[in-house]
Each structure stands twice: as structure tokens, then as C-alpha cells.
């Protein structure tokens, strides 16, 4: 029977032609489609999960009985460290945000892509390159071996002299670039790309979870990166950040690491909470109980998570007065978690639950999360924590949290969205079997660890002697690990076979409540033929609105078929703001990631000049990337809407709209502020420990010249402001001149500062004392920051003579904002620098 080519069908075909990417390997290498990038993340993280699992199995085999010699001690240390690093940095976080977040978030908010599609691709390629970088350590027999939290002084050069720890420090900084870029992208997407009508109170709960996680990443990664940079400087260049004999402090590492490390726990489990809140209403056939409270709980957990870091350090000798601050926050953070728990359970009890495979995993998650959460609350009791620190109790606790509360929902999510991604159904009975086998294996593996910890078995030991009463429980754990592996293999087998032989799923096999279920399975490259309008957080269940969408498609309203178009909306109320022309596929992300891979490899090998050359190559790739500009954004009109239909208020609103580029820059500034905040805090932390600051023999810092130079730098705020104002009024030449003036002053400032820096280096060294280490690190970071600002201004100068496009206007706004931030940081840095002389 011939298909009637309705206007709606014709529009779908046109959109398919517009959004279709090349097929084959080239298509995958150059893709900017969030769904394909999500799939790339998925398969990459699954491979890392398999590697991390293999490491775990080898360790459990070593520990199956006393005095076993399956693994040598150093091999065990390497496997143990790589297992932790892999599962946290290369599996759970990239799986939950990179795979699930990327694939689902734009679909759930009714967008056609992420806010920055090419940056999204870059995040993936950097993630892949960092994973290969870290795992290449195993090929050269020098994998990280000081545990996943890599405590100093053990991790210092004199105790572990090979490349092991350098792979860790540089690999995680490399990985952090990917994660930071992804977080900025998620936040901007949530802020700017929600479908019209999806105000904050109508956003799906999964999106709240991604919002919370992205904010947490933005502020948690800078302390980790700072700690890693300090360690690498200690190891490679002989700095003294963590050397107590030279004014450093090993506890500085612990503070910085756990300021990252505990939020990281919530970064790991919050997307899983989001998955649970997506699955439960669907299978309970009712809306989530206490929707606003669940949303707030997701944010509150991430926020309070920043104030509990020292509960990982209760045994290091902090004063009780310090630790109570963390104990209080640790106790209270359980409340928002409990709010979610009660909401999930109440939704299930008051609904009509269908116990299909995805829901089983979520119920398993709830049970395991309660157990992991309760054992976590016990650790808020300082005396108890001190007793069980560094025992298997802790290992048991965090595996209930990470495996039970994060991996179980991920597995449930894989089943839940499998039909959407592949268009096929999985085998239900094998799905249920895989759940039960995994659940039993998980509990057999990790529950006995609590008992072993309480009877004193320390963690990280590669073996144990006979006669301590640990043998039987260790045997049970190892058998449990093998059962757990069987369960996971069943999941994999089910999904692989179903991909090829499963029944067709249809668009919405489970009656899902969010917008992705209103698209075909798998979703087309353009996601939505017509941009949906939203009146409810459960937009998928709003049948009237979805019926209306179909009518709009036939009429050609809100189709956006003139190019790679998607709507931009306002942050809070998602009013239509502008129509954005999105970039299409590009080679630049993969090339840029490759260049950065060479940079980090050269840093590892301590070939700093070659690393510098490849930084230049990366910069060049970035410049080429931004040379080809997307078409201008324009007013929100559909095919049947005419320009005259746009009111003056609409035009004015668009002029005042904060574009994605502005939001991206603001979020970059936020994470940089956290970085400089960490550096300056580290400075004062080290200063507070020293009997004299600067130490005897070091000159007091100059005051007048640094302050005067900073004053000169601050004057650049005026020409930069005037440049932005002229650009807004389309006065390109004046804008160019003001930027050029600012650039001259900025270059003069930087040149003079470099002269002072070199003079200081000839007077005292960063290798003699922690004072010198932090002094030069702080100034070098600031100078690099100024240089970035100068390069951005230079880029604008080179582009403006050929006219002022919307893209360049956004560039002017972004650079203006960034430069004012550089100036603010300059003030803080100079005040810190001269403080000892005041």
C-alpha cells in the first residue's frame, strides 16, 4: 500500500536530510550528534568496566584463601589502584553522565542537541584518550600503585620513583578536562535548550540530577586538579608542597583530595538517583510523590556533599573542634537522601507497580542504598570511624554505595532505555534472572566485608595469614564475586542477543512519562520533528499536548527546518528566546584531543619543549575550529510564522538574551574561580603552618611594583567595557580599537610580570621550601590566565575586521566577561603575593 506523503511526513524527510551525518567510521569520528556520542561513551565505558571487573576478579582470587600467591604484592597494588581509578573515573561517572546524560538529556528536555555539540565530541575524545593514557601504564608495567586516593608521602618520587604516579596525576588531570567540558555543556544545555514551557518546576527529575552533578563537578574538580598539579610538580620538578621537612604538608593533599572526593561520591550516585526517579513513576503508573522535595534533595545532597570532606580524615589527628563541623554535615546529608528514599518507596506503595526487569534493579538499588547509607551514617560517629578506618568495613560500605546505589540503577537504566536506543525489546525472564544473580553475588561479595572490617582485617593488604578467623568470609566474598560476574555477563548476553533478535519495541513500550518516549525508537537524528511545548514535568503523559504537536507538525509550526536549528529558551521559565543554528560534524574535536594526548604523553616523559609545541598545535586546532562560524541565530519563527509576527518585545528580549556562549564562559569562570580559590587557600594553609612566612633566608615580597602593575592591568577594564558597548551598537571599528588598546596594556603587563618572575627565580627557588613552591605556582597560574585572556582578545581582533556577526558579538561579550574575571583574579593574587610584607 502506498504511503500518503502528508506535509508532516515531508517535513520529517527534510529534517532527516538536514541532520543526517556521514555513515561508517568517518561518521563516528566526526559526529556531533549527542546520541551517537552517548553510544560512544557507553561502549567505551563498558570496556573499562570489564577491565576494572577483571582486576577485581584477580584480586578476589588472590584473597580467596590465606597466603595465596596468585599475584605479587606490587602487582596487587597496581591492580587495586587501577580498579578504583577505572571504576570511578573511567566507568561510573562517564557512564552515568557521558552515556546516559548525553543520550537522554536533550531528548528529555525537548532539544535537538547539546548546547555545544563539538565540545561534546571533544569531551568524549579526551575521555577516551585519557583512558588509553592511564591504561598504557599497564603496558609498560608501571600502573599507578598507591591506591585510588594516592596519599602522599607514599606517592612522592622518593618512595615510588617510576612513572606509576605520573600516569595517575597526569591521566586524571587529562580526564578532568573532559569532565569539566562535559559539565559546562550539560549546564548550558539545561539552562538554554529546554523546550518552550519547560520552566524549572516542570523539568524532569533526571535533569535535576544531571544539573546537580554538573554543578558539583564544576567545583569539585579544581581542588583535585590543584592537588594533582602540586604532586606532579613535587615529583617532576622537586617542589615541596607535601614535604613536611621543607614547609609542606601531607595533609594538604588529603584536604584537597577529599574536597573533591566526597562530592565525587554524590557525583557518582546522583545520576543513578535520577535514573531511579525516571523508572519508578513509569512502572508504578503514577507521578512521583513529593516532586519538589525530590528535586531539592538531589541538589541539596550535592551541595552539602562539599562540607563533609574531612570525615575521610577523622583518623589523621585533626582536632575534635574541627571534626565536629564535618560530623554535623555528615549526619544532616542523610536527610535529603532519606527524602528521596521515602518518595521512591511511597510512590511504589501508592502506585500500581509492575515488577518488570528495570524496576527490579531499582528495588534492588533501594535495598542496597539503605544498607550502604546506614553504614555511612555510622561513620559520622567519630570514635566509630576511627576504629574502622582503613579496614574492610569501609570497603564494604562504599561498595554498597557505589555498586549498589550507582551501578544497579545504571543496569536498570540500560534495560529501561534499551528499547528506545535500539528499537528492540530485551528478554524479560533473562533480565529478571540476571538481576537476581547479580543481587545475590553482590551481597555475598560485599556484606562479609563489614564483618571482616569489624574484626580487624585491613584494606589494601595483598594477603593475610591463616588463623585470624578471616578465611571463611574471604572465601564467601570471592565466590560471591564470581557469581556477581555471572550476573553481569547475563546482562551483557541478554542485551547483545536482544539487539539482534529482540522483538520490535515500538516508540513507548513501557508508557514512559518523559519526552524521549514520544520519539520513534531509535530516535531520528533530529530528535523531534516539531519542537514540543511543555505544560507538565510528565510531558510524555500529557496526551493533549502531544496530539497538538502532531497537528503543529502538519501545519509546519515549530518545525525549524531551515538548517541545524533548535530553540534557545530563557533559563528559568523556558520562554522562547532565539533559534540557534547548531554546528554539524567536525574533525576538529578528535584532532584536538589527539594533540592534547601528545601533550600529556610528553609531560609524562618530561619532554617539556615538545609538550609546549603540541600545546601550540592544540591551540591551532582550536583556532581552526572557531574560524568556521555557524549561521546567525534568529528570532523564534516557524515556517508559517512571518517576521512581522514577532513583536517588538520579542526582539528586545532576544537582544537581552544571554546566549549559550555567555553561559559557557560564565561556567568556565566559575570553575576557574574554584581553581584560584583552591590555590589561594593552599597558600594560606601552608602559611598558617609555618613558624615564619616567608621562611628565614627568603626575601619579603615586593609591594609597590606588583600593586602598581596590577593597577595598570585594572585600567583595561575600561577599554574592554567600551569595546563591548560599541560592539553591541554595531560600531565594529571602535570596538576593534578599544580591544587593541586593552591588548597593548595586557601584553605590557604580562611582559613586565614575567621579568619580575624571572628575577624572583634568581633570588629564591620553588625547590627550597613550600613558600617558594606555592609562590611561583600561584604567579605562574595567574600569568597563564592572563595569557589566555590575551589570546582570546587577539582572536577577536583578528575576526572583527571582517564584520560583526552574531557569533562574534557573543565572542565580544564572552571575552569581556572573561577579561573582567582575569582582572578580579589579578587583585586577589597580588594581595596574596604581597600579604607577608603588609
Amino acid at each position: 500500500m502506498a504511503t500518503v506523503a502528508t506535509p508532516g511526513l515531508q517535513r520529517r524527510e527534510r529534517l532527516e536530510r538536514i541532520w543526517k551525518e556521514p555513515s561508517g567510521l568517518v561518521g563516528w569520528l566526526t559526529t556531533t550528534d549527542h546520541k551517537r556520542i552517548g553510544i560512544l561513551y557507553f561502549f567505551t565505558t563498558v570496556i573499562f568496566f570489564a577491565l576494572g571487573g577483571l582486576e577485581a576478579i584477580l584480586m578476589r582470587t588472590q584473597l580467596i584463601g590465606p597466603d595465596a600467591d596468585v599475584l605479587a604484592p606490587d602487582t596487587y597494588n597496581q591492580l587495586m589502584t587501577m580498579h578504583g581509578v577505572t571504576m570511578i573515573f573511567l566507568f561510573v561517572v562517564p557512564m552515568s553522565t557521558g552515556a546516559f546524560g548525553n543520550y537522554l538529556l536533550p531528548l528529555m528536555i525537548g532539544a535537538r542537541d547539546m548546547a555545544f555539540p563539538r565540545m561534546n565530541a571533544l569531551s568524549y575524545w579526551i575521555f577516551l584518550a585519557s583512558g588509553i593514557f592511564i591504561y598504557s601504564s599497564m603496558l609498560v608495567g608501571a600502573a599507578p600503585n598507591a591506591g585510588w586516593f594516592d596519599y602522599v608521602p607514599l606517592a612522592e618520587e622518593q618512595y615510588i620513583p617510576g612513572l606509576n604516579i605520573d600516569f595517575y596525576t597526569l591521566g586524571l588531570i587529562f580526564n578532568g578536562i573532559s569532565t569539566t567540558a562535559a559539565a559546562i555543556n550539560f549546564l548550558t544545555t539545561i539552562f538554554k535548550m529546554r523546550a518552550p514551557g519547560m520552566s524549572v518546576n516542570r523539568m524532569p527529575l533526571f535533569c535535576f540530577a544531571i544539573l546537580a552533578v554538573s554543578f558539583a563537578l564544576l567545583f569539585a574538580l579544581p581542588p583535585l586538579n590543584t592537588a594533582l598539579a602540586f604532586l606532579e610538580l613535587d615529583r617532576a620538578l622537586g617542589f615541596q608542597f607535601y614535604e613536611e621537612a621543607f614547609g609542606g604538608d601531607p595533609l594538604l593533599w588529603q584536604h584537597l583530595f577529599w574536597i573533591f572526593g566526597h562530592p565525587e561520591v554524590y557525583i557518582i550516585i546522583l545520576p543513578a538517583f535520577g535514573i531511579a526517579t525516571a523508572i519508578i513513576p513509569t512502572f508504578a503508573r503514577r507521578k512521583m510523590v513529593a516532586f519538589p522535595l525530590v528535586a531539592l534533595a538531589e541538589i541539596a545532597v550535592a551541595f552539602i556533599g562539599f562540607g563533609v570532606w574531612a570525615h575521610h580524615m577523622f583518623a589523621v589527628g585533626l582536632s575534635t573542634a574541627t571534626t565536629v563541623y564535618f560530623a554535623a554535615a555528615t549526619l544532616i546529608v542523610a536527610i535529603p537522601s532519606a527524602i528521596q528514599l521515602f518518595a521512591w518507596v511511597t510512590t511504589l506503595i501508592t502506585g500500581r507497580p509492575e515488577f518488570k526487569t528495570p524496576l527490579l534493579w531499582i528495588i534492588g538499588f533501594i535495598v542496597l542504598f539503605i544498607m550502604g547509607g546506614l553504614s555511612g551514617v555510622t561513620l559520622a560517629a567519630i570514635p566509630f570511624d576511627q576504629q574502622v578506618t582503613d579496614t574492610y568495613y569501609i570497603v564494604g560500605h562504599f561498595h554498597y554505595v557505589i555498586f549498589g546505589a550507582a551501578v544497579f540503577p545504571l543496569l536498570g537504566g540500560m534495560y529501561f532505555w534499551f528499547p528506545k536506543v535500539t528499537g528492540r525489546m530485551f528478554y524479560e525472564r533473562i533480565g529478571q534472572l540476571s538481576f537476581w544473580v547479580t543481587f545475590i553475588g553482590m551481597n555475598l561479595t560485599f556484606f562479609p566485608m563489614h564483618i571482616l572490617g569489624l574484626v580487624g582485617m585491613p584494606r589494601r593488604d595483598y594477603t593475610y595469614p591463616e588463623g585470624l578467623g578471616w578465611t571463611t568470609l574471604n572465601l564467601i566474598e570471592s565466590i560471591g564475586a564470581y557469581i556477581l560476574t555471572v550476573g553481569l555477563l547475563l546482562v551483557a548476553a541478554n542485551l547483545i542477543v536482544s539487539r539482534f533478535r529482540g522483538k520490535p519495541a515500538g516508540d513507548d513500550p513501557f508508557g514512559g512519562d518523559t519526552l524521549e518516549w514520544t520519539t520513534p525508537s531509535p530516535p531520528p537524528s533530529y530528535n523531534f520533528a516539531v519542537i514540543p511545548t511543555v505544560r507538565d514535568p510528565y510531558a510524555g503523559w500529557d496526551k493533549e499536548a502531544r496530539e497538538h504537536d502532531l497537528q503543529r507538525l502538519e501545519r509546519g509550526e515549530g518545525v525549524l527546518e531551515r538548517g541545524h536549528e533548535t530553540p534557545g529558551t530563557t533559563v528559568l521559565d523556558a520562554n522562547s528566546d532565539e533559534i540557534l543554528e547548531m554546528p554539524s560534524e567536525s574533525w576538529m574535536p578528535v584532532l584536538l584531543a589527539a594533540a592534547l594526548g601528545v601533550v600529556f604523553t610528553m609531560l609524562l616523559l618530561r619532554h617539556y619543549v615538545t609538550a609546549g609545541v603540541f600545546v601550540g598545535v592544540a591551540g591551532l586546532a582550536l583556532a581552526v575550529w572557531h574560524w568556521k562560524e555557524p549561521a546567525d541565530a534568529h528570532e523564534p519563527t516557524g515556517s508559517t510564522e512571518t517576521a512581522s509576527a514577532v513583536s517588538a518585545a520579542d526582539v528586545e528580549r532576544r537582544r537581552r538574551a544571554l546566549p549559550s556562549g555567555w553561559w559557557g564562559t560564565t561556567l568556565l569562570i566559575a570553575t576557574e574561580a574554584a581553581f584560584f580559590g583552591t590555590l589561594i587557600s593552599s597558600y594560606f594553609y601552608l602559611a598558617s603552618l609555618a613558624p615564619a612566612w616567608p621562611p628565614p633566608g627568603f626575601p619579603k615580597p615586593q609591594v609597590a611594583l606588583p600593586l602598581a602593575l596590577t593597577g595598570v592591568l585594572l585600567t583595561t577594564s575600561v577599554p574592554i567595557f567600551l569595546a563591548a558597548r560599541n560592539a553591541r551598537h554595531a560600531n565594529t571599528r571602535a570596538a576593534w580599537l578599544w580591544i587593541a588598546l586593552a591588548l597593548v596594556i595586557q601584553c605590557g603587563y604580562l611582559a613586565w610580570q614575567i621579568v619580575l618572575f624571572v628575577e624572583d627565580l634568581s633570588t629564591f627557588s620553588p625547590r627550597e621550601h613550600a613558600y617558594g613552591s606555592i609562590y611561583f605556582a600561584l604567579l605562574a597560574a595567574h600569568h597563564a590566565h592572563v595569557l589566555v585572556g590575551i589570546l582570546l582578545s587577539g582572536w577577536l581582533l583578528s575576526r572583527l575586521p571582517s564584520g560583526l556577526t552574531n557569533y562574534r558579538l557573543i565572542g565580544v561579550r564572552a571575552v569581556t566577561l572573561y577579561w573582567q574575571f582575569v582582572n578580579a583574579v589579578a587583585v586577589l593574587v597580588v594581595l596574596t603575593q604581597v600579604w607577608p610584607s603588609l
Partner: protein
Amino acid sequence: MKIPRPPLSLLVWFGLLGAPLAWTSQHLVGVGMTLAACTEGMARKGVPADPWMIAATAAGALVAVLAGASAIAAFRATRGTDEPPQGRMNFLARVGITVTPLFLMIILMSGITAVLFPKCNQS
């Protein structure tokens, strides 16, 4: 004289963010002071920890209480519809009402207890 009422959006945002930011400040001051109180550098400067901790706790608690009141006022002023912007403001006000007691509890629990302990004793 009639006191002018603050704009609704200000009430909403203060109600939402007031208590979390108050706790952040109190936490940083408290932790910073208790860490520094036992170091040589701080002893050299002779800065006492307790007054700072008490001031931070009192100020934090006061801001949190005011934020809670703002959130309640915003909630009452925006009841009755789900439509943005009023519905969105009501949503954020409800969130503010719920988070404020949590942060107030942390401020009081940590601030009061920390002052009671000798500064440089380890448990």
C-alpha cells in the same frame, strides 16, 4: 510609616540560597579557624578562634532564619498556579522552605559543639 516590601523574586532567591550560603560561610570560617588555631603561624598572630566561630554561627543562624521567613513569604504570595513565572517561584519557595531547616540544623549543631571543645585536643 509603611515599610516597602522587597520584590518577590528577591524573596524567592534569598529564601532559596540564604541558608545554604550562610552555612557555607559558617563552615569555612569555623573549619579555617579551628585548623589554624593550633598551628604555629596562627599562634604567632595571636588570633583567637572562639569569637570568630561564635560570630559566624550566630550570623549564619540569623541569615538562615531570615531566609526561611523569606521563603515562607514567597510561598504564600505565589500559591495557586503552576504557570510560570508564579508557579516556578512557588516551586523555588517550597524548596527554600525545606532546605532552610536542614542548613540551620548544621549551623547550630556544628557551631555550638565546636565551641565547647578545647581547640587543639584530638579525640
